[in-house]
């Protein structure tokens, strides 16, 4: 398991209106961050079925990031509240199956927070690097 060439595989499921726009803004500002995260865009974090995240872990993801609008700023009023509740519950499920719940993270990055997006990216990659490869990796597929 101790593969020296291991690079974390992290998936970010992010909302169209805030975090995706914030990530675009980080690009415009040329804010550099580690290239280990791949993004999947949804219209709202409320769209994220907890099964998506479990599927990602089952597929061997080392980390999953969910990022949406700040509370009160949701383009759809309250989708991010509902997502946050689901992620909170999901974290306890992850713990129960023996997966470090730090592998799942929810952040709130607005469309004007390009710099924050860079910080979040750097921080998530750092956390996952510290945790090492997911124990589910060898069972993937």
């Amino acid at each position, binding site marked *: 398991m101790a593969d020296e060439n291991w690079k974390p*595989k992290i*998936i970010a*499921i992010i909302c*169209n*209106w*805030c975090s*995706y*726009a914030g*990530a*675009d803004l*980080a*690009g*415009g500002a*040329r*804010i*550099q*961050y580690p*290239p280990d995260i*791949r*993004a*999947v*865009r*949804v*219209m*709202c974090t*409320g*769209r*994220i*079925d*907890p*099964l*998506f995240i479990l*599927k*990602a872990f089952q*597929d*061997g*993801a080392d980390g999953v990031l969910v990022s949406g*609008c700040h509370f*009160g*700023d949701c*383009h*759809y*009023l*309250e*989708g991010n509240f*509902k*997502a946050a509740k*689901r992620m909170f519950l999901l974290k306890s499920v992850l713990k129960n199956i023996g997966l470090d719940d730090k592998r799942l993270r929810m952040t709130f990055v*607005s*469309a*004007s*927070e390009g710099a924050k997006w*860079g910080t979040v990216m750097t921080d998530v990659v750092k956390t996952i690097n510290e945790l090492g490869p997911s124990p589910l990796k060898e069972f*993937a*597929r």
Partner: protein
Amino acid sequence: MAEVKKYEEPRIGVFVCHCGTNIAGSIDVKAVMEYARTLPNVIVADDYQYMCSTPGQNKIAEAISEQKLTGVVVAACSPRLHEPTFRNATKAGGLNPFRFEMANIREQNSWVHMHQPEEATSKAKDAVRIAVAKASLLEDLIPKSVPVEKAAMVVGGGVGGMQAALDLANAGIKTYLVEKTPSIGGRMSQLDKTFPTLDCSQCILTPKMVDVYRHEGIELLTYTEVEAVEGYIGNFDVTLRKKARGVITPAEAEARGIVGGGCTGCGDCATVCPVIKPNPFELGMAPRKAIYIYHPQVSPLIYTVDFDACVKCGLCVEACDTKQAVDLEAKDEFMTVKVGTVILALGYDIFPIEKKFEWGYKNYDNVITSLEFERLICASGPTGGHLIRPSDGATPKRVAFVLCAGSRDNTGVGKPYCSRFCCMYSLKHAHQIIEKIPGVVPYIFYMDIRSFGKMYEEFYYRIQDEGAKFIRGRVANITQDPVTKNLHVNAEDTLLGRPIDMEVDMVVLAAAIEPTAETEKTRRLFGVSCSQDGWLLEAHPKLNPCGTTTAGVYLAGVCQGPKDIPDTVAQAEGAASAASIPIHRGEVELEPYFAVCMEDKCAGCGLCVNQCPYQALALVEKEGRTVMQVTEAKCKGCGTCGGFCPGGAIWMQHFATPQIIAQIDAFLLGGEQ
């Protein structure tokens, strides 16, 4: 509808953009294109310098018809920028435009991994693989057209809001102009003169106020606030709170059967009113009664009762006599109007500059703000246009102007941004006192003079020639001589490189501006985002500066960011033009990201119904079973129901579960393990 429409076999075309060197500078575009050719379902892959150019778009259209593609992937910039462009190209090739998926390899790749070409290329390959997986499962979608209500609303009756309302109404659109204070006019009506032409502010504003008041196409709703907003572009239902004014208009009097009644603005009521309050229009420097108008030029000329101050003695009712205009039992009223589009022109407030305690505002009598200066120098102001020291009424001979007071301030107390018009109005203030007070010397403490507009730099030279003294340096603190109430301005003259302690008679702080107290509440009602500094966020700073991320809601004036009057009016005209387009078209297309119930899977539990913030879902009886039904016109496509359904029975069009799972699988299970 709920079934996945599929062609026999997905046939995907992948097009990778160089974007000059924006992408090709850090990503090996050829390698990404070659890699795409190895992916399942990919029939053709190509690359081009600029995919968004006409030849680039033609490549897509040609490939669709030649290769009978069922899906298109473009790896380029952000879908938030060019998704509409490439959807059009997809459509031009004869394919449903929703069979298009974009891989963002610029904003979220080449630009943020500029010095890691290998990793960036590998990430781009992953992004293409993820996009191809989704494109393979995309289906035809038909946007829903909805009719647009032939009416618009402008929130905020300052110069920007008035201009927008006039433009809309002149274009034949019924316009509701909502203003929270008793009169339209906004901040501009508080100003004495405008730079650099030195036009009298009221003189150029009041004709516009009258135009707005008289315009048949404008329904003016002063002393009114937005209470609730429902609906979407074309069909907003806006609930307004008409605050209890306590005075009725002639029209309202007629409706109540009072012949020749209603407020004529004569002022007899205010003459007898025993309650005296500071007038906020004069920033508290002049009194007003509990029944009041702000100033003689208010529009509409209708008095207003301040029910917080009113003692209900009834003297005003007696004074009004047969006109019966005063109604001290008035209550707030609510009304709902239907409009197609909305313009927010919410304006600004002055930053509470007393927070910068080192300048002594509110502690020292002779430290005032620029807006207070405007009222003091204005002929219709509390002193009849005589600039006096608040401490003793004397005419000041040495006046210091402190620029960037709370602006360009990174201490965390003030505002980091430039408030943009303070330099120019301070130059104007210097001119005004030189003109009015013989022998006066204005001292302007500045960081940089930002005179960026048309004829502004020339105005700056003129003020220099007129004798204003410019000192480049930030004011550290201001102290007061306790006997004379004169002020000592302590600063560093950064051009001469030495400290200054200057005694002056008066200090004028060019205080920063900030969003109004109501901006936060109003923007949330309309679902508009804000920047980090609290100003409302435009859809795109260059390409869509009047739009917002909420379709059908537009921005005008300072609420989007500090602007002077010409820029505010220009943006208002732009916003009015943008807001009139959907109304004149008569219908808008909504993105077809609706939820669809897969009735064979739906157990009718109804858990989704409470998840929907728009009440778009309901349980219905169908063929003896309870199933969920979506009202498409209400569904905005967030997918919160789809993320929650325990049976997986909700198909979120364009973001369907199999499509998203395919993306996750493509990233984690596909490619080089």
